[in-house]
């Protein structure tokens, strides 16, 4: 078991290095001209530019820069922002809790809504409720998260005046509701569809028939016997969809002025602050990879057939 976890974890390392490498290549090979000059603008003081270039070692051969970059990442050194001169990692870590909170809230919403809608749809398949939920989830999958965010703002903030239209509100729950719902809705739609199809597959299984033949009530048959089996593929979807969720977080944060990594990244792009772009992208991609690792490892808890060897 421990060996299995270790092996799975080690397999993630080359992926993380790959992510860092591609991000590095993107910014330092494909950017035409001098990134510092681009970042500082045309009228920057040539001496300052030269100083930053020297400080960042941009005059070294590419391979040396690459080695230093990767080596730095392992030591937690993501470089320094062009614009604020602060260490990138500090900036990223400062913004990370807001994004984590948003993503977590959205995931919880998506699981609660998605799994319950999926169960109802499967148990009452081809009923009005089934069509209703499935229409909603089809819309949810096709709807841009930021547009849903705008619609929610119009309805709940501007028209009904129930919830704030944006901002962090120093962490108050009221400020979290709309962005979390906007972000979680698409995920909920995906989860609902997966839960439905997975439940429909499971509900005809012999062991569900056995459970009914035991005299168990329909609720226990569905929740205890069917759902636990049906959840296995749903967990996978939650993991793989996290990429969309993190991407969606970038957009959602932008709509709701949410002070997270997404806005940090977008501002970095607009200001052409390359080390900061690299840092946020690598950090978020690493989160994605690591959560999927956790999802992978969690299968064993749900499915005893998985062997750790």
């Amino acid at each position, binding site marked *: 078991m421990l060996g299995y976890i270790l092996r799975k974890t080690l397999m993630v390392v*080359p992926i993380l290095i790959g992510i860092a490498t591609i991000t590095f290549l*993107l910014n330092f090979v494909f950017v035409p001209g001098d990134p510092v000059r681009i970042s500082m603008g045309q009228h920057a003081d040539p001496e300052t530019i030269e100083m930053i270039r020297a400080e960042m070692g941009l005059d070294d051969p590419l391979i040396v820069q690459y080695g230093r970059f990767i080596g730095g990442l392992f030591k937690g050194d993501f470089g320094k922002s062009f614009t604020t001169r602060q260490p990138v990692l500090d900036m990223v870590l400062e913004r990370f809790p807001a994004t984590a909170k948003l993503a977590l809230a959205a995931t919880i919403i998506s699981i609660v809504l998605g799994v319950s809608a999926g169960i109802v749809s499967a148990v009452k398949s081809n009923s009005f409720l089934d069509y209703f939920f499935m229409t909603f989830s089809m819309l949810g999958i*096709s709807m*841009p998260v930021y*547009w849903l965010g705008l619609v929610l703002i119009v309805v709940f903030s501007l028209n009904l005046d129930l919830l704030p239209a944006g901002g962090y509100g120093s962490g108050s729950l009221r400020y979290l509701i709309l962005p979390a719902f906007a972000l979680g809705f698409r995920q909920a739609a995906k989860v609902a569809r997966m839960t439905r199809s997975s439940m429909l597959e499971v509900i005809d299984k012999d062991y569900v028939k056995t459970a009914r033949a035991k005299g168990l009530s329909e609720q226990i048959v569905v929740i205890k016997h069917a759902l636990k089996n049906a959840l296995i593929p749903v967990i996978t979807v939650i993991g793989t969809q996290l*990429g969309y969720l993190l991407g969606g977080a*970038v957009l959602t944060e932008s709509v709701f002025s949410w002070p997270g990594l997404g806005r940090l990244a977008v501002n970095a792009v*607009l200001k052409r602050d390359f080390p900061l772009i690299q840092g946020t992208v690598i950090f978020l991609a690493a989160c994605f990879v690591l959560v999927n690792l956790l999802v992978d490892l969690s299968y064993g808890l749900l499915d005893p057939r998985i062997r750790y060897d």
Partner: protein
Amino acid sequence: MKAQVEEEQEIKQISEEAHSPWHEAWKRLKKNKLAMIGLGITTVLLIVAIFAPIIAPYNPRYAPVIEDGKVELSLQGPSWAHPFGTDKLGRDIFSRVVYGARISLMVGLITQGIALVLGITLGAIAGYYGGLIDEAVSYLIQVFLAFPFILFAIAIMAVFSEPGVDKVFLALGLISWPPLARIVRGQVMSIKEEEYIEAAQSLGASDFRIIVKHVIPNSLAPIIVTVTLGVAGAILAEAGLSFLGLGTQPPRPSWGVMLKTGQEYIRSYPYMIWFPGLAIMIAVMGINLLGDGLRDALDPKMKD
């Protein structure tokens, strides 16, 4: 009587076998109501995009300037003359939504075109030559899929000194190939094992011809499905990038650009966000429905 029944069944079977798998797939697709809705929406989208100049009543980029540079029609709510209203510059939002279909479809098709070329090439090379080459390509696929999609696109857009729709094609195309490469790679590997390839090889057919003749037709079904769903994904991604200001730039009437403008006026003129958003949702949903339907029709066993 018995014999007759049996004979009839046999005839029925034979005639069913005589149809091509594509014909069968089309028959299955036609029975799928949701897929037909998707096909309908996609067709409408195509027509709107192609005939945008005929359909749109006004110029999507510039409104007529009344004297002194003043825009008379600025920020008008929906009316008979302007069913979706006008924006700050007095442009007809309906016309802009119509032209927006062009941009969205172009993004979808061009990015998937780039992805197809990259995906088929890399997948075929990996599957055919195997060994180290295969490992390298497979590693690349894994790494690419480890990036959250939009974030990857943002990172690439950052590289360009000026954002714009042409760069969006490139950025999204560059990151959309891995699923296609996977399909082609798997198909090449399985076909490589089969005898008729060996026969073709001994006859001296070139590797390229083998791939073109045997692999592409065999993996066409999953490729079509992936590309269709990819078009929808690309439309969403372009709109997202443009919404952030990192994609298509004004005055081009991209749906994402329109939402970005709409957001600025959301407190006083919320009507501006409805129609571009609905357009994205309906277009993406139509193409998704078609893609799902194609998947069910082309290969009932294929799952996402």
